[in-house]
């Protein structure tokens, strides 16, 4: 914990979160749908998704949310300080898409008892299409 505290104390506004690339493997996504009991046909049926104007089945926001969270927790290495995440889904992600996670620290608020770190992130596919974006709040109490 002391090691982490010294790392978090070194965080600065503008600091970049190490980027990450993930390919949404079709088989993995299918197994995920089975695991969580997905029923929304937009995530299961290509025909249904196409009727709604999509190219293929749409990868669920929940699945993408899972991967974003993993990316952040892998970076901060202390899940206890991860307090909030707002995520907006801008464009669909389809199975076999490769997505890239990008983010940086946009604000740091130091008070007597706590430090709040705000990060903005975005996720792109094909390096140009933004599929998600959002903000993350990390909170460190001075007693930690």
């Amino acid at each position, binding site marked *: 914990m002391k090691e982490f505290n010294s790392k978090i104390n070194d965080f600065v506004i503008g600091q970049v979160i190490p980027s990450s690339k993930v390919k949404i493997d079709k088989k993995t996504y299918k197994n*995920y749908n089975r695991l969580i009991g997905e029923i929304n046909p937009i995530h299961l049926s290509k025909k249904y998704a196409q009727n709604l104007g999509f190219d293929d089945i749409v990868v669920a926001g929940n699945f993408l949310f899972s991967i974003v969270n993993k990316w952040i927790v892998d970076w901060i290495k202390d899940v*206890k300080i991860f307090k909030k995440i707002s995520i907006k889904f801008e464009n669909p992600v389809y199975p076999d898409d490769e997505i890239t996670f990008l983010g940086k620290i946009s604000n740091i608020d130091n008070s007597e008892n706590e430090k709040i770190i705000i990060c903005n992130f975005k996720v792109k596919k094909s390096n140009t299409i933004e599929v998600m974006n959002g903000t993350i709040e990390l909170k460190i109490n001075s007693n930690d």
Partner: protein
Amino acid sequence: MKNDVEIIIRDFHKTLLNIIDDFGLKEIIINENEIAEFCNLINDNNLIYLDDGSANEAGLEGKILPPGYFMNLTTKFIYEIFIKGGPDLFASKIIKGLIHTNSDVEFFKPILMNKKYKIKIELSNPLKKEGAKGTYYSIIFQISLLDNEFNVYAVDNHDFFFPI
């Protein structure tokens, strides 16, 4: 036509509210096997989700739910609500489907595995919006995870839009 749409949206909202009211507070226990499988699927090797000893070393009472899994828990209950609504819920053909557009999630305490929690669901009023592709409505399910003393562990404000 416009009034028909608004009536359908109002009835849809009312139906959902009635179902949520009947739903009440649902009890859940986080299944550690499900979490282990999930971690394997997304290549998450963080032992705080898999091993009590490792979680203790990290300052936690025991292994915890990956924050990324929380939304999977909340969605299950939203789907239960839709299933309870039955085929008539989307039978109007005016509401073509629901698309999850954004979520605001807040974590208050680590969510321990194998502990009993309660799920509380609340629903916003539908909000009419205009987009590039026409009119749509937005509705937010607020899902809270509580313990038996009603302490809040996490909240997901799960926003759906439904195109008309």
